[in-house]
């Protein structure tokens, strides 16, 4: 999801009519967007766009393009003329291993207010962040054309090269920019991953930018006075840089600018021919209307289908028998398959007007035997007067180790936790129940709590998920006997014979703790929680209980789930 801010007034101006916030919300739905917030005093709308593969929608212009189609004000692919210019970019073959592609165009006749500049910067930033994968895959630069001379060189340069980066007043050497400049710190790792510095230079040697990190301070600054600008996108994917350039050009055209082409001179190491940008070559895709009708459950004609795709700013270019060939606007690269066109047609029909059809797939419903088994255990434990708990499976390592006197062990730990509180998956449940007791010392006793829940373990061959049941009881006169009687109650009802063998366990009191054995297999633990564990957790009352692994109880049908 991408979120943008824009002006309510300006959006209405672009739509050419007054719309209420509610109406606007309904219209934005057609552009897969919704209003997240409206701040009336600031005339500000915060709009969330749900698609991550449609960067053309990440600005007011893009949404309006879509909505005007739905409103019937415009249809088909928007077209504009491109005038030739004598500007050229020469690409260095050494860039083949790092950031080989560049797409470039010139926009003239631009008249940008401060608001428009901010909107344009917002679009560029959202595209860089999300579609450009934090500038790794692509990044956008815009420059004041009047300060640039052709041919522009996109080349590799020495670390000793220096220029004044945006927002600074002193010249800085390239490594210094990566270390000290705010943007260098944010995006410098991308350049450090190359074995050289990419640079964009004007024919007279003036630096335009160090892609994808930072523009130079003067050439790379767009202001309200700028009337002509150079737009450039560099990156690692040819299609990506070109579609982004097309989106930016279309947005500038929607503002009344004129677009001029730029020639890209590629060395054979990168591409076997030169490019003229922007490349508005139109891709086509065929869709079979009979197949489409079967897919959507509709009954639309070839003529309907053509009108509907044109409403969505595509062109219907040819029809033969049941096959419609559809032309895709050059600012969209998300159409991979005819099902993508099927969605466009469904949206144009309005999902709320298509008519939902009645349920017809008849099958017998059921829960899995393992869930049924878990429910049996839950019911028995409820019958003892236990309060059922749901605790987190992703938890704090202190709860699983330090708080219950246990050492570090083979646990599933998270490589990228947001906080330590949620950084390791539990391999057993009882430490979490001890934690719950420690949070409820002000509540009346006795307290009987239990959880039947999933735990995760690392085995020799795999990582497994299984269900355990833990039942614990806190009361002034709680003793091993209590835990034992409830375990007996549970296992008797489950027709399972068991033994308890002596066990020394750091969480439990010596001599009052045992392992539960079923069919010669150790499958759980029972005992009195050790006083020093109680003390650590500030629980001032005896606690006893047991935890048992359900897959090891033969009368149940609980299975271990292997990840691989």
């Amino acid at each position: 999801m991408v979120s943008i801010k824009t002006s309510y007034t300006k959006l209405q101006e672009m739509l050419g009519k007054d719309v209420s916030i509610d109406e606007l919300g309904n219209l934005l739905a057609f552009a897969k967007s919704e209003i997240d917030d409206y701040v009336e005093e600031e005339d500000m709308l915060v709009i969330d766009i749900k698609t991550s593969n449609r960067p053309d929608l990440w600005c007011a212009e893009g949404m309006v393009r879509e909505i005007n189609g739905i409103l019937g004000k415009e249809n088909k692919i928007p077209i504009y003329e491109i005038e030739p210019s004598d500007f050229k970019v020469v690409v260095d073959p050494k860039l083949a291993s790092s950031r080989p592609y560049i797409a470039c165009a010139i926009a003239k006749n631009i008249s940008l207010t401060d608001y428009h500049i901010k909107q344009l910067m917002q679009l560029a930033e959202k595209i860089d962040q999300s579609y450009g994968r934090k500038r790794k895959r692509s990044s956008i630069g815009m420059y004041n054309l009047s300060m640039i001379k052709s041919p522009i060189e996109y080349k590799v340069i020495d670390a000793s090269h220096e220029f004044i980066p945006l927002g600074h007043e002193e010249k800085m050497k390239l490594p210094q920019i990566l270390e000290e400049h705010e943007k260098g710190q944010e995006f410098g790792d991308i350049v450090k991953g190359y074995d050289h510095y990419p640079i964009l230079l004007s024919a007279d040697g003036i630096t335009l930018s160090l892609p994808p990190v930072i523009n130079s301070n003067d050439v790379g600054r767009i202001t309200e006075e700028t009337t002509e600008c150079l737009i450039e996108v560099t990156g690692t994917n040819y299609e990506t840089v070109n579609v982004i350039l097309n989106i930016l050009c279309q947005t500038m055209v929607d503002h009344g600018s004129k677009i001029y082409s730029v020639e890209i001179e590629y060395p054979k190491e990168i591409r076997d021919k030169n490019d003229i940008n922007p490349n508005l070559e139109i891709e086509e895709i065929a869709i079979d209307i009979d197949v489409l009708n079967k897919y959507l459950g509709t009954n639309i004609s070839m003529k309907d289908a053509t009108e509907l795709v044109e409403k969505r700013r595509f062109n219907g270019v040819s029809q033969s028998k049941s096959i419609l060939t559809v032309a895709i606007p050059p600012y969209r690269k998300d159409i991979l398959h005819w099902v993508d066109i099927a969605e466009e047609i469904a949206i144009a029909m309005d999902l709320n007007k298509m008519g939902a059809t009645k349920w017809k797939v008849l099958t017998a419903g059921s829960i899995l035997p393992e869930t049924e088994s878990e429910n049996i255990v839950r019911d028995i434990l409820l019958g003892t007067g236990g309060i059922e708990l749901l605790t987190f499976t992703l938890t704090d390592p202190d709860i699983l180790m330090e708080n219950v006197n246990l050492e570090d062990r083979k646990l599933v730990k998270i490589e990228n936790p947001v906080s330590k509180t949620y950084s390791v998956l539990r391999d057993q449940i009882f430490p979490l129940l001890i934690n719950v007791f420690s949070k409820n010392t002000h509540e009346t006793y006795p307290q009987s709590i239990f959880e039947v829940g999933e735990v995760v373990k690392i085995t020799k061959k795999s990582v497994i998920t299984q269900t355990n049941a833990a039942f614990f009881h806190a009361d002034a006169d709680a003793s091993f006997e209590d835990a034992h009687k409830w375990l007996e109650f549970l296992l008797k009802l489950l027709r399972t014979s068991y033994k308890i063998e002596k066990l020394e366990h750091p969480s439990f009191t010596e001599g009052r703790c045992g392992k539960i054995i079923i069919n010669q297999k150790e499958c759980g633990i029972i005992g009195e929680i050790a006083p020093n564990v109680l003390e650590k957790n500030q629980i001032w009352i005896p606690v006893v209980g047991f935890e048992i692994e359900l897959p090891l109880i033969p009368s149940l049908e609980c299975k271990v789930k292997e990840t691989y």
Partner: protein
Amino acid sequence: MSEPEKHISLPIEAVEIYKILNKKKKISIKEIEEATKLDRGKLEYFLDFLISNDLVSRLPIVSHLMSLTKEGREAAEKQLIERRIVEVLRKNKDVLFANLSELMGCDKKEMNAGIGLLKKKDLIKIEKGTISLAEQDTDINADLQGILEDFLANKEVDTKEFEAILLERNLIELIEVKDTILEILTFYEEVKSRIKQTSEISRLTPEMIRNGSWKDVKLKEYNLGVSPPVFYGGRKQPYAHFLDWVKRKLIGLGFHEMRGPLVELEFWNFDALFQAQDHSAREWSDVYRVANPKQGKLPKKDYVSLVQKVHEDGYDTGSKGWRYKWSPEKSARLVLRAHGTSVSARTLVDLPVPSKYFSISRCYRPDAVDATHLAEFNQVEGIVTDPSITFRDLLGILTTFAVDVAETENFVFKPDYYPFTEPSVELSVNDPIMGSVEFGGAGIFRPEVTRPFGIETPVIAWGLGIDRLFMIKHGITDIRELFSHKLEWLRTAEMS
């Protein structure tokens, strides 16, 4: 001549209470409690004898106490919001409206209320998003402020004139104080001769039943109006109980359950669902990765190489594919299940036709935990397949969910985006309180998802936001309460 006078049967304790009342004439129930040292239940029991014989009357009284609310206390300590705004504006020139709440360190709603007040009295100007004082030496609502401060200092306050405004602004509240007064109706001396003290027993014993002595004694009557002792029984966790209900609903609709592991291969979480390996949802910030072991093993099955092909060139689906070199190492990385759809993906292997599946699965996202986000939550997801199924059937399934599970007729469909379905649709439910709530999502699995598993029929994938539904039903505003460890809530939460 008066009628022959009847005896009045009273237990000894009731007579004692009667004597105390006789002396004091009028007394609150609390005072009697202290004087007799009886607990409330017993006291009420004995009082009933006196009241039913018209010896004593019982009058409930209600008085109102004025007290500062949380907001009131804050205003008393930190000044009223409008006074704080004035103060900030006096110190800072030309404050941007957008920055004001940050400068004030208060929330927007509160600030807007203050702004509204000042605007109404023309004490401030707002021009082009900049806000300033109309006159520098404003001393707004000084009297109100004084009253609040007196309140805080427990001084005698005369609020008459300001009571309405204090209540309206929620600065004070009226607390009802209930008490019971007992008053003597008939003096002890008048009926003394008619009182007969009785002895009653309070409990039937096994011996009394066996030896027949129950015939000679009277069992004390219970006061039926007395509150019973507190009791907490065993019960299901309310949210777990709700999830059981959802399961029963889905089973009733013909869905079969499926389950999967908590730790997942990226293959099932992403690749099988046609999410490109550089997709932003696979990044560090969007999915929890396992530190050790970092990698598992891919299944040794044909569908793995077909998934690879579908990513690289679209395989035989007619799709362009993602056109990059697919990496099996990346696909074998271990993550915590990020969505329930990975369980659906596993079910695609040897999927029976027709079939309907659901799962309720724990999922994980690296979000900072707050009132609206959890690092761990439940998703309800499923799939439906049949050779005849269409997109309009999918809308029908969502309609059923809205009507049967969310129990509302008030919903709309909105276009949506999922990387693995096309078309994709959101089910948006209109709640009278929460407004428009995203309750579900669905779509038809892309052919790039189903073809590697040899599936020829359309497969509908759907998901429901049941956490939100549970919260609405229980009036819960903080999502953390779903996994609450507060025993008080677990013991007393009412059934929905």
